[in-house]
């Protein structure tokens, strides 16, 4: 696949450099480790640090979500690979204001090990308390009885939003962790894949689907999903995704939700708006209140074609955090 890059082995370095140069008022690269970026603004003393990260290739996630009201730092891995402990650790030290740091990351074997090692090192070497919340929103990635095995995908946006707002409001580490965990527990995502992406280093498509096929439950890195089938009209696809979400996490009339219709890369906003239209119909038919909606490519898989729907159930506390302002290069909310 054709890409506007230079050396395929240096895409992540060049991307981070370009990003940091584009938004110098928002972020800065750490001298200690160029795979760690932190907010360029001075954060308040005593504020709990919010650290996110994971493999790259999901832009604007995760680098795009460092800023006021969201994360204070991010560790950036190779494409679709967890970052090693070093940048996580350096970012942790840089954003700790004495009240500890929360790690928010997707539940993948690699991330669990690397963030886990970094958390140990932060404690041992620098006496920094670390709390961790693993995002497990992908309904398709394990049955309900094994929810703790589920992967984290687009729903991480809402978990970061909740934690970022709580930290911004001065909550302590335990409370920020509680809020982030609740946001995760109240969040479900289901995705559909249409066309593959390719790693810059291999140029090979990550999976194969026939011209008329889609894959329900496809992972955020091209991991095979629940089932392949004929490509259906958008409304029917949305009905299937919403069905699986609402079976897994019932929401009743009068309850509030936040909605994210997320594009995986090459899917157009036009398609996402068309999908949102059906999501909204389904929710209003059930009397469920959409408190806030987000439609766009918030967390991608390189140039993959497809989309996901995320529903986060909101209690009073989460609703307040979803409404909290944010100012990141790739996401601003007033």
């Amino acid at each position, binding site marked *: 696949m054709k890409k506007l890059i230079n050396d395929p*082995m240096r895409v992540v370095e060049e991307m981070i450099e370009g990003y940091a140069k584009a938004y110098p008022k928002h972020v800065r690269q750490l001298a200690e480790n160029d795979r760690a970026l932190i907010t360029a603004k001075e954060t308040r003393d005593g504020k709990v640090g919010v650290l996110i990260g994971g*493999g790259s290739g999901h832009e604007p996630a995760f680098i795009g979500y460092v800023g006021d009201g969201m994360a204070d730092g991010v560790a950036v*891995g*190779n*494409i*679709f*690979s*967890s*970052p*090693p*402990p*070093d940048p996580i650790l350096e970012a942790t030290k840089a954003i700790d204001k004495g009240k500890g740091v929360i790690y928010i990351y997707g539940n*993948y*074997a*690699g991330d669990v*090990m*690397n963030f886990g*090692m970094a958390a140990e090192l932060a404690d041992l070497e620098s006496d920094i308390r670390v709390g961790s919340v693993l995002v497990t929103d992908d309904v*398709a*990635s*394990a049955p309900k009885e094994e929810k703790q*095995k589920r*992967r984290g995908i687009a729903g991480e946006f809402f978990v970061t939003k909740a934690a970022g707002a709580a930290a911004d409001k001065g909550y302590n580490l335990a409370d920020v962790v509680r809020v982030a965990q609740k946001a995760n527990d109240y969040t479900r995502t289901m995705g559909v894949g249409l066309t593959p992406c390719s*790693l810059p*280093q*291999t140029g*090979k498509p*990550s*999976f194969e689907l026939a011209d008329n096929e889609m894959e329900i*439950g496809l*992972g955020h*890195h*091209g*991991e*095979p*999903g*629940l089932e392949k089938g004929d490509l259906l009209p958008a409304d029917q696809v949305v009905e299937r995704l919403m069905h699986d979400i609402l079976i897994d996490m019932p929401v009743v009339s009068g309850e509030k939700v936040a909605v994210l219709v997320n594009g995986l890369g090459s899917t157009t906003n036009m398609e996402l708006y068309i999908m949102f239209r059906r999501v909204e119909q389904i929710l209003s038919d059930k009397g469920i209140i959409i408190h806030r909606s987000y439609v766009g490519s918030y967390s991608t898989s390189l140039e993959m074609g497809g989309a996901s729907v995320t529903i986060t159930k909101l209690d009073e506390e989460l609703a307040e955090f979803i409404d909290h302002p944010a100012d990141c290069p790739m996401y601003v909310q007033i």
Partner: protein
Amino acid sequence: MKITAAEFKAFLKNVVTMIEEQKDYLCELDRKLGDGDHGVTMSIGWQAVNEKLDGELKDEQDCSRISILAGRTFLSAVGSSVGPLYATGFMRGAKAFQGKLELGDQELKDFWVAFVDGIKERGKAEVGDKTMIDTLHPAAESLQSNFAHTNDFVASFTEAVKAAELGMESTKGLLSKRGRSSRLGERSLGTKDPGAASSYMILNTFLTTIKSAQTV
């Protein structure tokens, strides 16, 4: 047998070369089961190790330090799942070399047993989960039991590599339970686990390296 730092470094260099050759194949396996990057990740990691070997480790004679630095370098370059796993392997293995002036049969056996134990502890996978453990666990078992009888590392390691190969092949018939492909269910059947393959290749590269060192 005895092994020198030069030979240990030759082994690491051979892994570098081997991984470059197997990169596409390992990606291909991972495309079927996971996110398609295993060959790329291994290549990035081993290229970084290669730079270390040509730089900081050029004149290093302490195999323990070589192994630790190789592990750390690999980890820092890749992260990923295999970063912590292989790094832990090399760092744990290094302990078997610590304070040893000569690396003989005993030290080499201890190295590989510690290597595998480290990976098991780090990843907490079990045999049958369709991971590199399906290669590494039977290899370490075989190595330990044969070595207990013979005290001959080369002979025992030759058997261990055979066990590793069987273990690797067995992953074709397994359902994924760990890592990215764990949700594949039925569809994971028939494809070899990429980590099981790369770990077999590393063991095998060690075997060919020491064999050619012996014949020189």
